[in-house]
């Protein structure tokens, strides 16, 4: 890091530890004072590549390689437009192809390959997918959600721990102070022998301990709604895109029993089948049972598979 310096005034980090390097969209560095001097009017050209630049676009250089700064800048811009999520695609393969396409665009823009063409592609894409882009803006990817959840959990755990230890300390301190005071008071006023008082005191102390133990409860802060959605999670209100497909039509089920047709439930009595089954007792009928039901099932069973298939 020490050998990094401003290409214009040749100051290095070694000579001036407070040197601040800045990067603009073209990925070339300048130190802060050179930026102040060259871009007094708010805009100008890059010293190295002559790209027209604005002063307001200068950022502090985060990484050693200014090209990375540039790439990250571009990437953030691209990802704002290309913000489809994995569940916007039907297969993983499509999603992966999409990811690669994004990567290609970033690569081209960073390495100045066919910049105009790429920009056109981006604009085209932006026009085509306006809705989805708008909808996904507020949403995090699933992985990020997971991460957020984990972080939240961690925070809560550490908070809980902190509280617990604090409580513990407080409790011990209080108990000690109280019991000591009580003992002193009693020794002062009571007529009982000291040994008895001490024993009583011990008992009381133990009781106190258990009492506090009971009071101590794990108060878990609510962070999940009863619906299972995390509190504070952003919910997108953009309308869900409509999916048009052919409507479903019900087709009655047909079962080939390979046997003679089974008479319907209402015909069983007329055809005399019911004479051969036990009539339903009043107790049976209470639950909605009729002897016809059992009979019908038995006949179905008997008739099926009679014809050779």
């Amino acid at each position, binding site marked *: 890091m020490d050998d990094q310096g401003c290409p214009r005034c040749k100051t290095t980090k070694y000579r001036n530890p407070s040197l601040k390097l800045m990067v603009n969209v073209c990925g070339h560095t300048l130190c802060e004072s050179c930026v102040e001097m060259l871009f007094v009017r708010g805009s100008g050209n890059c010293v190295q590549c002559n790209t027209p630049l604005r002063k307001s676009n200068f950022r502090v250089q985060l*990484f050693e390689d200014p090209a990375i700064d540039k790439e990250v800048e571009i990437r953030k811009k691209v990802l704002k437009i290309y913000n489809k999520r994995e569940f916007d695609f039907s297969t993983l393969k499509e999603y992966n192809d999409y990811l690669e396409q994004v990567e290609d665009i970033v690569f081209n823009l960073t390495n100045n390959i066919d910049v105009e063409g790429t920009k056109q592609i981006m604009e085209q894409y932006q026009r085509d997918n306006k809705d989805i882009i708008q909808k996904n803006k507020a949403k995090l990817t699933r992985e990020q959600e997971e991460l957020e959840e984990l972080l939240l959990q961690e925070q809560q755990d550490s908070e809980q721990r902190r509280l617990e230890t604090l409580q513990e300390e407080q409790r011990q301190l209080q108990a000690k102070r109280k019991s000591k005071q009580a003992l002193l008071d009693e020794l002062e006023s009571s007529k009982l022998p000291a040994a008895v008082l001490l024993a009583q005191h011990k008992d009381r102390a133990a009781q106190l301990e258990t009492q506090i133990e009971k009071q101590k409860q794990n108060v878990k802060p609510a962070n999940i709604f009863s619906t299972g959605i995390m509190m504070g999670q952003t919910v997108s209100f953009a309308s869900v895109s409509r999916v048009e497909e052919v409507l479903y039509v019900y087709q009655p089920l047909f079962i080939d029993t390979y046997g003679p047709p089974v008479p319907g439930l209402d015909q069983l009595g007329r055809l005399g089948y019911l004479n051969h089954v036990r009539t339903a007792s009043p107790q049976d009928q209470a639950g909605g049972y009729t002897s016809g039901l059992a009979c019908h099932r038995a006949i179905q069973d008997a008739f099926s598979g009679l014809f050779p298939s």
Partner: protein
Amino acid sequence: MKLNIDGLLVYFPYDYIYPEQYSYMLELKRTLDAKGHGVLEMPSGTGKTISLLSLIVAYQKAYPLEVTKLVYCSRTVPEIEKVVEELRKLMDYYARQTETKNDFLALALSSRKNLCIHPEVSSLRFGKEVDGKCHSLTASYIRAQHHSNPSQPVCQFYEKFDAVGRQVPIPPGIYNLDDLKDFGRRKGWCPYFLARYAILHANIVVYSYHYLLDPKIADLVSKELAKKSVVVFDEAHNIDNVCIDSMSVNITRRTLDRCQTNVETLQNTISRIKETDAAKLREEYRRLVEGLKEANVARETDIYLSNPVLPDEILQEAVPGSIRTAEHFVGFIKRFLEYLKARLRIHHVVQESAPQFLKDIYEKVCIDRKPLRFCAERLRSLLRTLEIADIADFSPITLISHFATLVSTYSKGFTIIIEPFEDKTPTIANPVLHFSCMDPSIAIKPVFGRFQSVIITSGTLSPLDIYPRILDFRPVTMASFTMTLARTCLCPLIVGRGNDQVAMTSKFETREDFAVIRNYGNLLLEMSAIVPDGIVAFFTSYIYMENIVASWYEQGILENIQRNKLIFIETQDAAETSMALEKYQEACENGRGAILLSVARGKVSEGIDFVHHFGRAVIMFGVPYVYTQSRILKARLEYLRDQFQIRENDFLTFDAMRHAAQCVGRAIRGKTDYGLMIFADKRYARADKRGKLPRWIQEHLTDGSLNLTIDETVQLSKHFLRQMAQPFRQEDQLGLSLLTLEQLQSEDMLQKIAQIAQQA
């Protein structure tokens, strides 16, 4: 001798057996029967290894369908060799007794560095260089080039192995590393790949922890081991640290700079290939689009880099579109790299969790989580496509990609700590990014899940219940065995005060105290006068040792000690230390003996044994707590408290005591050995510390040996040493701590044995 362990016929290759070995085998058998995991603690020097081996081999022979393979994991190469030698003894005994030819295949596996027989490659000094060179000779595209262009060098050993080695099975027998090399030389096959291939059908595999625990290696080597294997982790008292290290990444400024050159090389290679051989990149691209799994395409020699995350965490889908083409991926890595550089440019310590890091990286450089997860995978594919032979140079970028994959895969159990400088040198900027794993159970979980029995064993595992907790598994057996002794050959003493009654302790407040340092010096001086041969003294840290020794020098104590014995010092330099060790042993062999000053957690405390006269006394100056101000440790303690309900203090004490026990355990390496164990810190006398020592030490720690002064210590030691100096023959041990078969079968002995194991 032939033993009957709970109905199982076990061949034991020695004529005598220790009672605790019998008891150990009983417990082990129960664990295997239950098909569960076990934690077993038995003192060092009581024949753990041979008990393990003979029981499991017997089990394998008796129930070949229940247990198909034994995977024995040890820590260092010498230990691996020792295990293989024991196994050889056992197998010889089997062959003699049953008079059949041995049909078992057992082999040791180590890195290429230890197994390579290629004349040029094997002469390289560092493991990484050997791996890289090997890869540059055996990668599939190199071999393809060799086909069309015979001047392209390849490894003739691998070629030969590839041609015939796979069809011809390696004959059954016991192979240590040298045997494998010999076999390879005879056949002209590459021993490394031979061994890696042979472990699939071997009955017993002996290798290092990392082949099972480190996901980067385990995926390559141990992927296809059967579920019905028994896995043994020997010397497992440090297993949690191994697990943590295998999942952690440290990134320095230097790594990033070297990574930068890697990226440039990649970029140049890509543009060159684009001009000459664009079809290759297109082919890779096509493969990635289709999400083809490369495993079926890649050859064993190509998979040099593996995914750093555990197999079940790897996403099984196609690489995301944003890093599909080579240029995009390089741009991606560049952005990531610049982001890391920017993060390292800080002036204060930052600690954050993985989700925080991911959120920040998205905001700063628009990197999503998903491509990060695929980073390691994608880099591997790219390196192979570009046919970069010299892969060793690309270790920095590999490290970065591992970091990317790990940080985006695991949201829990890890922390990121960025420190702008080291604590010791706050003026010198040396930024480091620690991505540290805090949960050892993450790395070891697949091992417990995959294998039917996992045995964790060591000489010092006390307190036993903490290992299942920090490794997060449910053992079916947990037992600690004591040493049965015919004479009390170990004498632990806790020295708490000097002769001037000043408390001796390495507590932070008093460690610089003049009186404390002087008392430590006096203790060593007095001991040097009465102990014959070698004394090993352990300090809590290198800095502490330096301070104390300097101050002893000023007080003239050092001079007085040197009248009795020579002094050797362990340093952070490995070569210097091994030199000191060698000379120390030489001094112990002849003359008045010597003193070795070393450091707990150092090389000496972990791997070096001081048998017999090499270590007649071990002095532990202070309690070897870890450096508690380290942020990584603090984060880990917090995690342990939140996740496993282990209090900070409990863990710190546990960690300190296991290291103290390791240190003092160095002196006793068998039942004929004897040694003093002096704990020079009054804090050892407290129940919470004492209770965490292994049971076999605690047993001999009576109330009379607590909180002694130096004078009392000298008296007790003199008495102990005089007793020990009496002749001690095997007959004295027989029937008490050493049993013949008949003695073992007697009724009251079996009852006694039942009491040895203490279930935790």
